[in-house]
C-alpha cells in the first residue's frame, strides 16, 4: 500500500458515477465507498439522518473484525457481509484488496439484486482504485503550505 493516496477530480467523478449507477440499477438507498481504514471515498444517494463518515468507520471495523475471525478459522476471507433489519438492510462487500462498499437498502429491492450490482460496481471501482493506488504521487500538489 502506498504511503499516501491522491484522488484527482476526474477519478472522483468516476467513482461517484459508478455508485450512482449502482443505486439506479439496484434500487438501493445509499452507497458508500471507503477503504479498510474507514476513509470515505464517495457517498451517493440518500444521506439525510445518517452520518456516512461514522458508518464508514464502523463498517471498516466490522469488516476487519470479520476478516480476523475468518483468518482464525482458516478461511481466506469473507467477502460479503449482510445485516438484515426490519426495514433497512446493509450490504457490505470487498472492493479489490483495500476498499469496501456499503450499500443501504430497503424492502423495495432484494439482497439478490443488490449483490448482483454490487459485484458489477466492485469490478469497475477496483480498476479505478488500482490506478489511484499505483500512483507514485507525482500528484499536482502545486505548493501546498501549512497555514501559519
Amino acid at each position, binding site marked *: *500500500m*502506498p*504511503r*499516501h*493516496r*491522491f*484522488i*484527482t*477530480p476526474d*477519478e*472522483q*467523478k468516476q467513482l461517484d458515477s459508478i455508485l450512482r449507477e449502482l443505486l439506479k440499477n439496484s434500487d438501493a438507498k445509499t452507497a458508500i465507498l471507503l*477503504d*479498510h*481504514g*474507514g*476513509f470515505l*471515498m464517495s457517498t451517493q444517494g440518500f444521506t439525510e439522518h445518517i*452520518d456516512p*463518515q*461514522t458508518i464508514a*468507520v*464502523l463498517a471498516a*471495523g466490522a469488516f*476487519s*473484525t470479520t476478516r*480476523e475471525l475468518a483468518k482464525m478459522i482458516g478461511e481466506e476471507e469473507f467477502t460479503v457481509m449482510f445485516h438484515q433489519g426490519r426495514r433497512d438492510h446493509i450490504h457490505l462487500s470487498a472492493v479489490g484488496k483495500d476498499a469496501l462498499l456499503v450499500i443501504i437498502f430497503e424492502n423495495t429491492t432484494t439482497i439478490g439484486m443488490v449483490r448482483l450490482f454490487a459485484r458489477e460496481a466492485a469490478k469497475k471501482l477496483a480498476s479505478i482504485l488500482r490506478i489511484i493506488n499505483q500512483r*507514485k*504521487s*507525482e*500528484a*499536482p*500538489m502545486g505548493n*501546498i*503550505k*501549512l*497555514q501559519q
Partner: protein
Amino acid sequence: MSTVNFATREITCKIVYYGPGLSGKTTNLLFIHKKVPAKHRSDMVSLATDGDRTLFFDFLPLVTNAVKGFSTKFQLYTVPGQVFYNATRKLVLQGVDGIVFVSDSAWNRMNDNHESFVNMKENLSEYGLTIEDVPYVLQFNKRDLPDAAPVEYMNHLLNREKQRVPHFESIAIRGIGVFETLNAISRMVLVKLISELSQNKE
C-alpha cells in the same frame, strides 16, 4: 496513509492515541470533543464496555484549515489499552499517520507503559512499519498524581529511540496539555506529508 483529494480539496490523516489501559486516551478525545466547536468536528463514536473501558476504539473526526486551500481532516482514534485486546488494537493501527503515546505517570504503571510501547512497535511491524516511519509524540498523563514519576525518568524509559521525540506533560481530566499534544502531532504529520510530496516531485 494520508488521502489527498483534489476534487473535494480535502486532506485526511489518521492519528492514533496508543498506550496502556486506563492511561487516559479516551479522556483526551472526550476533552477535545467538548472543546472543539461543533462545526469543526462530528460526533464521537465510542465502542466501549459497560464499564467505559475501550473495547475496539473511540473515533473523533476533526476538520481544520491547517493547510492552505484544503480542508484538512484529522481522524482521531484511540486503541483499547487492556493487554488482551491486542487483536483489535492492531486493527486500529492500520493506515496510521501519526501516534500519540499516552503513558500513565503513576509509579506503579511504569512497567505497563514500557510494555505497551514495545507492543506498539510489534504491532507496527505487522504493517511493515517501524517507529521511525511514523511521527509520534509522548504524553505523560496524570501529572496531578501525588506519586507521579519524574519526567526525566519517563523520558529515560520511553524516549530512547534513535530519534528523540517531543514529550508533553498533561492532566487530561482537566484538559491540561491535551491540545498542546494534538497540535504537535498534527503539525508533525502534515510536515512529513508535505515534505514527502515535494521529494516525490523531483
